[in-house]
């Protein structure tokens, strides 16, 4: 049982990583991965919404009529996104400005509705929390990885909240922090992961 619970948490991070394996939640993922700051902000917001909505949906799962469950799930998710959005406007205005319309758009992140429908509406509270946490961490992990690459190649240095972590003596390739860079890095990473997967099978 212990191992089983651990699996609920770990599957989101590696085996069923929402971004790299299931290719869900692409829109916020590619748009905000320009810097590590943005990635941390978006990752945190997504984990919060994912865990909270999984909790509520798991608690009300037996009372919700089957036919109108999707609209109800969406209202629950939208309420938590509103909380995050208002919180950011009040306490983190700079981050809110950088993320722009992608904060309210967490509502239509398919990972969140997908987990609500596929997992939280069928499982108990504890397992739903673990699942939400795992999927959220998996999403943030992927987001950090891709923004790490983009920020490093696009600006030549890595900064987290104003502190420079690392500088590399390369000419910054600005294209990496523009839109094409996101698609290119994502394509290469997907190909790389698939190549590793193929080799392991062979």
């Amino acid at each position, binding site marked *: 049982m212990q191992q089983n619970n651990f699996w609920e948490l770990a599957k989101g991070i590696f085996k069923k990583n929402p971004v790299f394996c299931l290719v869900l939640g692409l829109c916020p993922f590619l748009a905000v991965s320009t810097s590590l700051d943005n990635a941390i902000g978006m990752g945190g917001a997504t984990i919060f919404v994912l865990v909270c909505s999984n909790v509520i949906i798991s608690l009300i799962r037996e009372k919700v009529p089957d036919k109108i469950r999707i609209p109800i799930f969406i209202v629950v998710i939208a309420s938590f996104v509103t909380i995050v*959005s208002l919180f950011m406007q009040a306490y983190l205005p700079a981050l809110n400005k950088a993320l722009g319309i992608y904060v309210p*758009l967490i509502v*239509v992140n398919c990972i969140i509705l997908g987990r609500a429908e596929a997992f939280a509406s069928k499982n108990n509270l504890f397992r739903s929390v673990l699942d939400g946490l795992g999927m959220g961490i998996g999403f943030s992990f992927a987001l950090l990885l891709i923004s790490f690459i983009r920020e490093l190649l696009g600006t030549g240095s890595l900064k987290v909240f104003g502190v420079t972590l690392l500088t590399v003596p390369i000419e910054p390739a600005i294209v990496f922090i523009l839109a094409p860079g996101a*698609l290119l890095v*994502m394509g290469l990473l997907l190909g790389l992961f698939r190549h590793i997967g193929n080799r392991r099978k062979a």
Partner: protein
Amino acid sequence: MENLLAIIIGAIFVNNFILTRFLGLCPFFGVSRRTKPALGMGLAVIFVMTLSSVVTWIMYNLILIPLGLQYLQIIVFILVIATLVQFVELFLKKANPVLYKTLGIYLPLITTNCAILGVAFLNVQESYSFIAALVFGISAGVGFLLALLLMSGIRERLELSKVPKAFSGLPIAFIVAALMSMAFLAFSGMIQ
């Protein structure tokens, strides 16, 4: 007038919804394998986007602002769009079965398309007038259709060419999209 032209060109080319704003990527990769479904999806998006842009503008400016309820915008917008899509589906089924057959299967997919909701939020953020919101909705949809059609044309040919095994399917589609997006960067000098 010049302002509207800037909105049109901006939404179609400079800030193309798919290639520079990354809105609506799921249908972009999901429905771009063949040209015909891509066309159907694109037309359905233009239709719903224009309608929802106008309806959410009315809701926000005539209901939410007078009542001081702007903080409810996320919940209201998503519910309005979901209901609207349902109505459109029912209406088309009765009124125009031919059109329903072409667009019908794409309509449910559109509800959770972030591009539609994105237009509603951008209208608020840029505080567009009613006419501007209408024009913005149409041209964002046209930009979506354009990117989707170009992509499907390329992917149809891609199936016949030799691609390394690990890259076949989705990874190569991302790289193609990256090259298209790079080409669209050339438009960025067109408006200020």
